[in-house]
C-alpha cells in the first residue's frame, strides 16, 4: 500500500480531530480535515487527511502533542 497518495487518520470524535489538526499545523505539516470516507467507517464525523510522505512526521507530532487517534489507514491511489 506504499503507493497510496494519502492516509487518513480516524479519531473518536471531532474534538480529537481538531486537536490533531491544530497540532500538526503548528508542526508545519500540511494536513486537512475531511469527512470520514464511508468505506472506512460508518461514523458521520471528520478525519484528518495527510500526504503519504508526511506519515512519520505526523505520527511524531501527534505523539508529542498527546493526540489520541483510532487508526491510520491508506486512502486513495497514486495518480
Amino acid at each position: 500500500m506504499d503507493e497510496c497518495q494519502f492516509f487518513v487518520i480516524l479519531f473518536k470524535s471531532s474534538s480529537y480531530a481538531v486537536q490533531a489538526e491544530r497540532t500538526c499545523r503548528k508542526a508545519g505539516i500540511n494536513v486537512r480535515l475531511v469527512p470520514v470516507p464511508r468505506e472506512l467507517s460508518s461514523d458521520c464525523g471528520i478525519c484528518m487527511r495527510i500526504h503519504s510522505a508526511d506519515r512519520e512526521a505526523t505520527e511524531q507530532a501527534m505523539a508529542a502533542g498527546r493526540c489520541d487517534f483510532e487508526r491510520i489507514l491508506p486512502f486513495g491511489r497514486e495518480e
Partner: protein
Amino acid sequence: MEGKRQVYFDNAATSWPKPPEVAAAVSSFISDVGANPGRSAHSLSIEASGVLYDARELAAKFFNLADTQRCIFTLNATTAINLVFKGLLRPGDHVITSGVEHNAVMRPLRALERGGVEVTVLNCAPYGHLDSEAVEHAIKPNTKLVTLNHASNVTGTLLPIREVGRMCRAHGVPFMVDSAQTAGSVRIDMEADNIDLLVFAGHKSLLGPQGVGGVAIGGGVDFSRIEPLVRGGTGSGSEVEEQPNFLPDMFEAGTPNTPGISGLAAGITFVLSVGIEEIRAHELELTRMLLGCLREMPQVEILGDPDPETRVATVSFNLRGISPSEVGFRLDDEFGVLCRTGLHCSPATHKTLGTFPRGAVRFGLGYFSTEDEIDYATESLKKIAGDSN
C-alpha cells in the same frame, strides 16, 4: 429623573459591561460560521468544531489543566455542579462542604441527602472564614468528595482552597472547587491549588455571555465513575445507541452553545491580555475604597471580613433601620445604582453570618467598575440613610 446615571454593581451575578470583543465574537460566529460543531463534516461544521476546540484549549490552559479534552462545557456552573454531584455520589457516600455555599451546591446536595448520601456542612467563623483543619477532621472512610466555593457570593470571602486541596490529596479524596465568584479575577491553577474538579461560570469574571459554564476534570479523576447528567447525540460513535465513554463527548450531549462559547473565549482572551494579577490588583483597590467609604457611615453594617485582601470585589452590607429590598429599590429608582438584595441564593451563608432571613444589600464590583462609581453609589447610600433618620 433628571441627570440620572446608571451604575452597574451586580457583577457577582453577571458581569457587565463586557469587552466589545465578546459581543463581536458571538455575532461573528452566528453571522459567519453558524454551523453545528462535531456533527456534519462540511467546511462550516469543521470550522465550528475548530471554534469549539480552540475555546476548550484556551479554558484548559487558563486553569492549567493539561488535557484539553477534560474541559467540559455546560450551560452554567450550576449544571456543572449537578453533573459532578449526581454523577459521582451514591447512597452511602459522604460529601463535605462549607456553611457558606450557594444553593447551586446546597440544593443538589440536600436532594442527594434524601437519597442516602451523607452530607457534612462545616461551620464557618462569623466572617465566613473556614478552618482548613476542620475539613481534614471531617474526612471519613466513605468520604467521596470535598466541595468548596473559592469565594462566597455574599461576602466575597476567599476560602483556603490550596490547603484544603493538599489535605484532600493526602487522604485520596477528590476535591471540587466552585470558582463562580473567582475565575477571571483571582489566579486559579489546578495543579498548584490541588483541585481535582474545577467548576467555572462563563458569565461573571471570565466576561463571557450568559449560558456558558463548565467543569475542568483533573487528570487524577477517574471520569468513568461519573455518570453523565444528560445523554444524547454527540456526533461521535453514531452507530451505537450507548453514550460515548470518552471526554468531552461523554458529558456534552446535544448541540452546544457555540456562539456563547465563542464569546467566552473572547472574554478569557481579554482577561489574559490585561493579566490576572492586574485585574486582581485593580479590583482589590476598588474593594478597599468601597469598604472605606462604607465604614465612614455609622448606619452601615458590613458583612464579612473588613480586610479587602481576604475577599473578592463583592461587598454585602445593611443600612440599620431600612430593609435591604427598600435600599436596593431606592438605589435603583432614585440614583440608578443597580445591585442585588436579599439572600443571594445563599441561605446557608446568611445563617452563618446571622443575617438570615433579612438578607443584605450586595455591591458586586467588577474590573470595569470605577472609583467615581463607588463615590456616587456611597453618596447615594448616605442620602437614603439620611432620609431614614
